């Protein structure tokens, strides 16, 4: 077999991966429109194309399963056989197998042959043309032609080579060895290539983004210098232009990293279909705004949480068809997946028209599990009770179903969204359904922060977690279990003194010794007050990872360079609070 270099292997994985990504939804569509010739053709071609590429990579296992699936679609599109439920299941099983093999290849392995049972099913399906009168054998198993036969055929069609009457194409004659006219030479390399897009290695993009980040920082410094020097108006103008240009450059580099959320959404029709079949439910998926763009890293990071939420909605949300019919709902439930841009954020809605969440049940459950006392649970308002599902260790199903109960709870979903500087909002109405709203920033490359000063140094607190800023009234500080708490508008706010966090040698009550400010932040459902010396203002920063020595340091997410050229550490609020709680 031909040896193929790694570049081609990588190309194949990307390109065939895209085909397969489309193939999933196409197969699900096929269930609705089994006779659509275009759809049948597209599916046929996808298997055919993947097979062709896999052949050159010597991936025989992949070739085999693609070949079997292709044969089936060859018969289907010729109209000799109709799609039915059994055939659909077999086809989907083949698709899953192909996807699995691609994963193995991607991780550098060689996939094992497909299970013989699957290959047999595919063969049987091909042999058993249901309800078809006198179906001729599928073309794929027809006989093949040899090279000699082909040559003979050409001789027969065009006469023996020596007798070919046609004039020879002039370009093939030795004359063609002569150099082409300059004009023609030029055209050669610049022939109108049909492709309008180019694949770029994400590492190169990241490097470019990094450089643009540096440029932004220098721009910020220049802006600061301009303010302090009150320089000539010419300099002023040049800096303004640089400012505008840098922002635009930053915007367009960011745009390069954008991908449509479709990349994640496209797997859901198939996923939901499989789940519905397994659970004996009927579920329709409606998708809106699949073309909404967001940062590539976010598209990837959102995949797992979204899959989990969709599983949850199918498993716990939407009722069995009979139960729905009793309450006057259509037998088939609807799952809406919607994405839309909201300023600097993207809003993702996952909405089902299922049974809704029973807050009373959650209250009982949290007590039974010993996670809360009965009186505490009773005091929760309706919304807070709903949000119990985000509590670590809380799972409402007595029996862990093999769908949602994969050891990952909604608490993990929530914390992974929080880790992306995002939020999860939950609405549920008993009998009417449940809606999850996820909000995440469009990009993680630029972070709006609040710059604060602590012990003579500047720190950046990510703005998404900041709720408010207020002056510290030292007379309102109380001590609970030797920890400072501030009574703010009738609510106890736990205080974290950043100066003591940085220098634990400082006395407990150092924060009461002078003028201080409180930055109120939200961490999961809790609120904390970070004590700082001074609040400097808002700044958009470019996140730089910490060096190897400082990597993994709790409480810090990275560093950045401020407008005055200083290095400022970026506070990782959840990790800071978490570590603080543990240590205290």
């Amino acid at each position: 077999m031909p040896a193929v270099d790694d570049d081609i292997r990588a190309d194949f994985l990307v390109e065939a991966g895209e085909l397969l990504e489309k193939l999933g939804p196409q197969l699900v569509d096929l269930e609705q429109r089994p006779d659509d010739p275009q759809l049948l053709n597209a599916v046929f071609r996808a298997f055919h194309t993947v097979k062709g590429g896999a052949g050159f990579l010597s991936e025989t296992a992949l070739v085999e399963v693609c070949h079997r699936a292709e044969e089936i679609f060859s018969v289907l599109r010729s109209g000799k056989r109709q799609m039915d439920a059994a055939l659909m299941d077999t086809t989907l099983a083949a698709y899953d197998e192909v996807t699995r093999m691609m994963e193995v290849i991607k991780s550098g392995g060689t996939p094992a042959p497909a299970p013989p049972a699957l290959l047999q099913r595919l063969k049987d399906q091909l042999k058993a043309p249901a309800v078809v009168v006198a179906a001729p054998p599928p073309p794929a198993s027809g006989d093949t032609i040899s090279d000699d036969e082909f040559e003979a055929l050409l001789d027969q069609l065009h006469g023996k080579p020596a007798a070919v009457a046609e004039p020879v194409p002039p370009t093939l004659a030795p004359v063609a060895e002569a150099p082409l006219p300059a004009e023609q030479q030029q055209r050669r390399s610049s022939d109108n290539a049909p492709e309008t897009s180019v694949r770029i290695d994400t590492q190169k993009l990241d490097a470019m983004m990094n450089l643009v980040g540096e440029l932004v920082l220098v721009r910020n410094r220049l802006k600061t210098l301009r303010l302090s020097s009150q320089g000539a108006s010419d300099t002023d103008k040049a800096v303004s232009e640089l400012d505008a240009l840098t922002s635009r450059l930053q915007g367009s580099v960011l745009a390069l990293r954008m991908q449509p959320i479709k990349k994640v959404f496209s797997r859901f029709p198939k996923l939901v279909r499989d789940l519905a079949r397994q659970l004996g439910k009927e579920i329709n998926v409606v998708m809106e705004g699949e073309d909404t763009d967001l940062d590539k890293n976010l598209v990837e990071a959102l995949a797992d949480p979204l899959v989990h939420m969709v599983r949850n909605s199918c498993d716990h949300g939407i009722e069995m068809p009979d139960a729905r019919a009793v309450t006057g709902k259509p037998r088939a439930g609807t799952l809406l997946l919607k994405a839309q841009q909201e300023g600097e954020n993207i809003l993702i809605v996952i909405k089902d028209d299922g049974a809704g969440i029973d807050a009373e049940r959650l209250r009982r459950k949290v007590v039974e599990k010993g996670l809360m006392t009965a009186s505490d649970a009773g005091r929760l308002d309706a919304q807070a009770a709903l949000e119990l599902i985000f509590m670590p260790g809380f799972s409402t199903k007595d029996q862990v179903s093999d769908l949602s109960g994969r050891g990952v709870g909604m608490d993990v979903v929530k914390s992974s969204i929080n880790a992306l500087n995002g939020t999860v909002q939950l609405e549920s109405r008993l009998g009417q359904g449940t809606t999850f709203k996820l909000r995440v920033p469009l990009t993680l490359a630029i972070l709006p922060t609040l710059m604060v000063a602590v012990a003579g140094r500047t720190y950046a607190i990510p703005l998404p977690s900041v709720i408010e800023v207020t002056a510290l009234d030292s007379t309102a500080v109380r001590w609970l279990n030797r920890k400072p708490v501030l009574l703010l508008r009738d609510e106890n706010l736990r205080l974290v003194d950043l100066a003591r966090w940085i220098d634990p040698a400082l006395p407990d009550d150092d924060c009461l010794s002078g003028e201080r400010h409180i930055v109120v932040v939200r961490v999961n459902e809790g609120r904390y007050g970070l004590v700082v010396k001074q609040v400097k203002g808002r700044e958009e920063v470019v996140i730089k990872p910490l060096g190897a020595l400082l990597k993994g340091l709790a409480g810090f997410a990275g560093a950045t360079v401020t407008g005055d050229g200083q290095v400022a550490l970026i506070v990782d609020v959840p990790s800071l609070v978490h570590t603080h709680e543990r240590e205290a």
Partner: protein
Amino acid sequence: MNKNLKILVVDDFSTMRRIVKNLLNELGFNDISEADDGKTALPMLQQGSFEFVVTDWNMPGMPGIDLLKAIRADDKLKHLPVLMVTAEAQREQIIEAAKAGVSGYIVKPFTGQTLKEKLDKIFERYAAAA
């Protein structure tokens, strides 16, 4: 063989174009352009002074066989050698292609050596006709 031969590789799967292009490069051909479908290939051929076409059979917009027929029907292009890339050497399919005037066929996957043999055969036939 004329290594300056100007070749057009037509396939909707860019990985496949790259594979064919690499194999042609290995054989010493360097003037290779690409098209992703019969529909985009035809205007390129009409303007581009190409001397050889390698086309896939199965493409979404205009399949290889239709591209072949269009080439043979075009007075300027009708003598252009066309090598058809197929997944199987189906008798019916190959006969159809031969009748439509294909110069040769090659079954995927193939090696550089096989490709060279196919090219040699095609040039032999053209040379004999000269």
